[in-house]
């Protein structure tokens, strides 16, 4: 089964290099991001490769072949989720390489270290985004899901700030402060574990939904 995970690298060798190069340019270009540098770089890096993987599957209609082989549909889905972790690991390794090599080469750019917060934040962001995207891809395939993804992306982009404003203006502001207060009273480790747990639950729910949708898909 591991070969289904690795094939997501094999089919986009050039994209992996491109995405790695992107991290380097990203770090050089956005010098004032602080701790968000790693988090944002990982969102972009995994986005490029996850999209590329699904796009290649769709373009070559490979789902037909994979589903004709003695592979369970749930394992095809599982491999895609494992690919996501593989991309995150490669992205993190690339970021670390940039972090260590930039000073050695004397490149005058700040590379912010990966902290516990930025790592867990990155994991959570990647889990949320892909947790939403994956079921759509498994239901509709890349080409048809892409349009919906754009809608989601812009809804989140413009919608979330408006929503937050709306809630803050009209709703239970007490509740909001209580949540903030709760997190301020916890140690970093507890927060990290909470977010890690949240990421895991999100991905698990997304996986279960994806499997159900993919099982019903026709090729």
């Amino acid at each position, binding site marked *: 089964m591991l070969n289904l995970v690795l094939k997501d690298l094999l089919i986009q060798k050039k994209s992996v290099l491109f995405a790695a190069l992107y991290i380097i340019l990203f770090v050089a270009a956005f010098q004032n991001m602080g701790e968000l540098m790693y988090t944002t770089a990982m969102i972009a890096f995994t986005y490029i490769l996850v999209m590329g993987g699904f796009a290649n599957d769709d373009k070559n209609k*490979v789902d037909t072949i994979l589903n004709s082989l003695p592979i*369970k549909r749930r394992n095809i889905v599982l491999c895609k989720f494992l690919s996501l972790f593989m991309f995150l690991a490669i992205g993190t390794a690339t970021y670390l390489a940039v972090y260590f090599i930039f000073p050695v080469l004397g490149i005058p750019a700040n590379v912010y270290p990966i902290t516990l917060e930025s790592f867990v934040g990155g994991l959570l962001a990647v889990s949320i985004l892909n947790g939403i995207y994956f079921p759509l891809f498994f239901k509709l395939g890349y080409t048809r899901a892409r349009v919906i993804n754009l809608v989601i992306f812009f809804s989140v982009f413009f919608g979330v700030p408006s929503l937050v404003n709306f809630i803050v203006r009209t709703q239970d502001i007490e509740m909001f402060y209580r949540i903030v207060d709760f997190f301020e009273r916890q140690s970093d480790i507890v927060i990290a574990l909470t977010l890690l747990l949240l990421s895991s639950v999100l991905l698990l729910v997304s996986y279960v939904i994806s499997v159900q949708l993919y099982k019903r898909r*026709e090729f």
Partner: protein
Amino acid sequence: MAPVLEIKNLRKEYKDFALDGISFSLEKGYIMGFIGPNGAGKSTTIKLILNLIKKDSGEIKIFGLDNLAYETEVKNRIGFVLDEAFYYEMLTVKEMKNIIAPHYKNWDEGLFSLYIKRFELPLDKKIKDLSKGMKMKFSLAIALSHHAELLLMDEPTSGLDPVIRSELLDILSELMESEDLSIFFSTHITSDLDKIADYIVFIDNGKIVLDKAKDDILENYGIVKGPKGLIDKNDPMFIGYRENSFGFEALVEDKNRLKMFAPDKIIIEKPTLEDIMVFYTRRNGNA
């Protein structure tokens, strides 16, 4: 012993087409030709067998096992060649094989190497640079390298030149010398089956029109031609009746029944599978 492939009352409905409760079965060691015009339901049937689409009702048993309940086990014993090569175009033959092979319990690398040599397939060439014939041969090499007991082929010859088609038919005849293999071969190019098929199942517009041994069909069926007005064109004995300026022509299931006509009035010709398909399709079109 259970048939290798058994289909009972299989239904699948689409907006504009329905596979209408079809049934047939294939015994071990034979080649079954599954013929019919484009859009008749051939690919739909094969996709249902492979669980690429979901049936509405009916039963599909392979080696006596339900194709869904024993999906992985059954698929380990099936080889398939589909009408298109659904591979990653940017990978080489070898890379694509490496993605597929580990999923088969009985994958035989030595056998694969043999077929690669025999089919003269370039392992390091990218799939996008292979000709259509080469891609079909690659699919066939994959299908034959895990000791499959049933070979499912969906229009494997469509779009191929006659040389490669005849090469494929030679390979299939050769494979049939071993009694362990059975082949289910869908095609609209019926001449492929004239030589190799043992049984013919003919599907038209989602319904099975004919399910017989090929030799029975070719021996008993006849195309009858004669002057206009000689026969009653509404008699169900005459399939796909048509008139032109010279007279009429129609297909009959049993040419012995034509003995009631004076031999100098009619001509009886031996039909090919293609003729049979054309006459039946014409009848259904007229119905």
